[in-house]
């Protein structure tokens, strides 16, 4: 089970990942940056400091800007993949598009607000609102894999791992 969790955390660690190198790379960096960018964004740190008096490391603004562009582009990639790849389209529900939109919108509005593109206050308010909606939705949707990934992976790893099956048979037999 632990080996299954670990091999799915490392790029190309699992067989499924080795079959889709482009998806693997985009997905790996997307998952890293989608967490790193908001947590270490300087503007967010300023707010943490003002509200709670706590402060940690900040990304340079230029770097955070690039990571944001990557996250938005990766979401575009996922969207195109859902539409274009037949076996993915087959298992896609409308809610999958909605979840993808929920993830990308805070980044889009944050990006627009930071660059001062469009009216600033509406962009900032939309950034905050879409971020709040996203945070609220996480525990009630598939986005819960942010926190629950390891448990789901452990369960699947346990079910399909040959060694685990042998051990179970032995213990039963």
């Amino acid at each position, binding site marked *: 089970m632990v080996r299954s969790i670990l091999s799915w955390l490392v790029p190309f660690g699992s067989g499924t990942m080795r079959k889709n190198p482009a998806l693997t790379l985009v997905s790996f960096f997307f998952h890293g940056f989608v967490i790193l960018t908001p947590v270490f964004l300087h503007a967010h740190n*300023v707010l943490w400091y003002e509200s709670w008096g706590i402060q940690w490391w900040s990304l340079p*603004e230029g770097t955070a800007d690039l990571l944001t562009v990557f996250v938005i582009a990766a979401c575009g990639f996922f969207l195109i993949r859902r539409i274009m790849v037949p076996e993915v389209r087959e298992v896609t529900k409308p809610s999958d598009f909605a979840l993808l939109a929920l993830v990308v919108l805070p980044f889009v509005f944050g990006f627009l607000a930071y660059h001062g593109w469009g009216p600033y206050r509406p962009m*900032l308010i939309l950034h905050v609102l879409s971020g709040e909606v996203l945070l609220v939705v996480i525990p009630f949707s598939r986005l819960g894999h942010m926190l629950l990934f390891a448990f789901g992976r452990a369960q699947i790893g346990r079910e399909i791992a040959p060694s685990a099956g042998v051990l179970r048979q032995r213990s039963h037999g």
Partner: protein
Amino acid sequence: MNNRVYFIFFLAWIGCFLFHPGGQHGVEAQEETYYIAHEEVFGKLQRPPVTLPHNLHMESLEQDGDGCGACHHLYDADRGALVPADGEETGCTECHGRTKEGNIVGLENAYHGSCNRCHRTRIKQKNASGPTTCGGCHKKQ
């Protein structure tokens, strides 16, 4: 003759640009507007500098019975507290450096703390107030 007069006016006009008090980090001069940049502290700036309408702040604070000490403070070692610096105003960089030193918060947090806190308080009091968002102060020129 006329040409010479024009030329002198022209030189005077150029002189206005050359010798006009820049006031980028001016402390002594009472400028109408200050540009808070402090590249000497922060190095290369990550956000646009902040424009501070100093006169507007003075007038507004005076109207509400506050003095210059609302922003300009000094540390009173005897009382162990910040006291208004009415009459002894200095610039923030006199004490505040890039990072926190002892009890003295870093320059960035000092600015954010002073400006934002006051703006928020004044909004709650339904007084005329200033920006409270990142881009409200850090405006691209």
